[in-house]
């Protein structure tokens, strides 16, 4: 009996043994015992957010910038339902999260008690796995399994729902190394996994005349070593490489092989190269619809290699020729070994012709925009932000919309884990709390949330969090008073009827910042921009920089919904094409 401790103590002990340094959360009735235990210890720091939705995005930002697991602690009922968006976001973007929710005592479960909800039922489809722990003696093993599942294979969110009586009950703690997790509950490839496929793939690459690497977020999830290996392999092959929104940073923007981002708002040369390549090497990407465009016209003449840790991504939307299931760093390491052992050499002449063609596409200068006049163009604002921050260790987060795409196009990432954005779910309101999480993980780094005026209002309450913990997060608002991406689609697909996409009565962002005791700055014209950015960087507090940009700028290039990679729309031909507009209207 002597070594029995309470459920709440087991929770904290498990977190400590798992190496957790910080928890993002919000207290409430059903988690009070855990908060009481938290109060009595000093090893784990707690960041109090202002709404649970902020906690989970902060944990995502922390996880993606540090490579560790993000931990969230919230109460039952509304506490749990408020994290559903963030769980879904983490599920889509493969972010390791452990979310602890309080639950009403077991004897009240099912009675529609105060702040009761079926948390495991609600979160089942938006978590990798979830638990309702009814026995205090199982609590520690559940925690250790939850952390392993969150990190193992394709990472994702795991939720642990703990009834209040279990938090009070006494039980025994079991250490991490005493827990045996059955292999079927994890992804564990054998060492020789897919060896033949790897050899087949490498040979295919060596025979390519027009190869392209298509890199996704899986390379970042596989750890920094994966990026190093991917860069090394691409250099050995000499092939062009394009990255998805989630994959930016795996290969540096300045790398001679990089064509930048592909997809709906990707680079013209990247999309054209995807369309015309003869061998496509997909590493850690999943043929998302924002990337592929119309499926029946997607890269019609290529052999496709697909490396993914999640077998369900293989042949889900695009049929591939050589699927390899495994972790990026292990697979690519083997690919490099095979390439060297067999002394493979790509056809230099063909490769040169391929690069010549790509360089012609580059001359289209797809990111070109008209930068005349005194008004700040949003693209220019991001370019200046990049120029003035490129020599500092900088993390960029974004919300969702036009500003997100401009950030992806104009901010140049040289390293992985520096770019945090909601890709799969497209969650407005992600960027600011994610920046808070990133800043908690990297107190000395510069963290900038490139935001839109609409998105930032979705989690603006976290200003209070940032100021409380003295987190010098910078919010860089590209303010056009519109939900810009919605307006752009209405312009292209709905006859220019701007239904509810104009935000009237926006707050004065400078005064808003000041009301939180943060610093507010504003730039209205080009000649004020650099000063504002410099001042923003040099300020040691939380800053909102309100950048007034031209209101009706659209984000180009663009593959309209229902179109193919070789049917890109450039800013110069921005007029409505009726036929594709009708087709595209029904799509998302």
């Amino acid at each position: 009996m002597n070594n029995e401790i309470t459920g709440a103590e087991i929770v904290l002990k498990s977190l400590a043994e798992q190496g957790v340094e910080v928890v993002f959360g919000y207290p409430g009735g059903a988690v009070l015992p855990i908060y009481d235990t938290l109060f009595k210890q000093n090893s784990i720091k707690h960041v109090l957010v202002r709404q649970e939705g902020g906690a989970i995005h902060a944990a995502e930002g922390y996880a993606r910038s540090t490579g560790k697991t993000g931990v969230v602690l919230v109460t039952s009922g509304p506490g749990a339902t408020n994290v559903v968006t963030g769980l879904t976001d983490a599920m889509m973007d493969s972010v390791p999260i452990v979310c602890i929710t309080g639950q009403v005592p077991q004897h009240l479960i099912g009675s529609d008690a105060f702040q009761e909800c079926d948390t495991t039922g609600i979160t089942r489809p938006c978590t990798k796995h979830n638990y309702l722990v009814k026995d205090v003696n199982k609590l520690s093993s559940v925690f250790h399994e939850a952390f392993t599942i969150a990190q193992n294979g394709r990472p994702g969110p795991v939720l642990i729902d703990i009834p209040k009586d279990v938090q009070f009950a006494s039980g025994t703690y079991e250490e991490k190394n005493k827990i045996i997790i059955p292999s079927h509950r994890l992804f564990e490839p054998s060492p020789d996994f897919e060896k033949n496929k790897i050899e087949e793939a490498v040979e295919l690459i060596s025979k390519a005349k027009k190869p392209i690497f298509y890199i996704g977020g899986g390379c970042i999830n596989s750890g920094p070593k994966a990026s190093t290996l991917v860069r090394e392999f691409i250099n050995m092959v000499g092939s062009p490489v394009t990255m998805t929104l989630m994959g930016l940073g795996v290969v540096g923007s300045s790398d001679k092989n990089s064509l930048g981002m592909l997809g709906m708002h990707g680079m013209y040369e990247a999309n054209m190269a995807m369309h015309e390549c003869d061998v496509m090497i997909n590493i850690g990407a999943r043929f998302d619809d924002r990337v592929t465009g119309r499926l029946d016209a997607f890269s019609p003449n290529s052999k496709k290699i697909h490396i993914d840790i999640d077998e369900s991504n293989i042949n889900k939307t695009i049929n591939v020729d050589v699927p390899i299931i495994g972790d990026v760093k292990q697979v690519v390491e083997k690919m490099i070994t095979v390439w060297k052992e067999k002394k493979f050499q790509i056809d230099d002449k063909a490769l040169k012709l391929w690069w010549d063609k790509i360089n012609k596409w580059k001359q289209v200068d797809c990111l070109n925009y008209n930068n005349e006049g005194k008004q700040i163009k949003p693209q220019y604002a991001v370019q200046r932000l990049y120029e003035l921050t490129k020599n500092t260790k900088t993390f960029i987060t974004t919300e969702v919309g036009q500003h997100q795409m401009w950030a992806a196009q104009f901010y140049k990432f040289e390293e992985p884990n520096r770019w945090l954005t909601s890709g799969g779910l497209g969650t407005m309101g992600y960027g600011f709390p994610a920046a808070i999480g990133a800043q908690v993980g990297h107190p000395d780094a510069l963290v900038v949330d490139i935001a839109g005026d609409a998105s930032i209002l979705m989690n603006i309450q976290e200003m209070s969090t940032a100021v409380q913990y003295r987190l010098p997060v910078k919010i860089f608002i590209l303010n056009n008073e519109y939900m810009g991406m919605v307006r752009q689609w209405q312009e292209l697909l709905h006859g220019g009827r701007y239904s509810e996409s104009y935000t009237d009565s926006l707050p004065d962002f400078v005064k808003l910042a000041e009301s939180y005791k943060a610093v507010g700055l504003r730039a209205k014209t080009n000649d004020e921009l650099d000063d504002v950015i410099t001042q923003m960087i040099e300020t040691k507090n939380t800053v909102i920089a309100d950048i007034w940009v031209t209101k009706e700028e659209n984000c180009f290039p663009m593959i309209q919904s229902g179109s193919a990679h070789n049917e890109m729309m450039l800013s110069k031909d921005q007029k409505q094409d009726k036929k594709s507009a009708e087709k595209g209207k029904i799509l998302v």
Partner: protein
Amino acid sequence: MNKSVYASPDQVSETKRHILTVLVDNEPGVLARVIGMFSGRGYNIDSLNVAEVSNDENISRITIVTHGTSEVVSQIEKQLLRIVPVHSVTNLDQEGNSVEAEVALVYIYISETNKKKVYQLCDLYRARKIENENNTTIFEIAGASERVNRFIKEINEITKVEIVRSGPVAISSIQKNEEE
């Protein structure tokens, strides 16, 4: 495959019936995880059967009858395997030899005029009388789904009936020790 909104309309292969056997840890919520995956991703369940099969290991066997193109069914199998408590997924149609059966309980309204015909038909199909109190007659018929279908069709032509069916369960008839 081609579940995306960007999909081309041409069908890749024909829709077929498949029987999937899913071995799972017998823990709370596991059935909800499995059927939630089907409804959430828009797959079909024609019938479903769950029972614990092994006492010592706490494992349940879920038998699911579904239909779809081979691409869709292969995606279903992979999605099932992503569920943490799932041990294995077997598509019995791809295994080749498998045996399937289901049970139906049929409440038959018998009168003097149809009694002889009913009993003849039940004899023919080897339907077993399992309840005979107070003139209620409940028959049990087991076997492949087509056989049960035929029986129900024929008995329906004779008299009014009420039916409950278990949905098929199936097992591979390939010797296990060959695989090992």
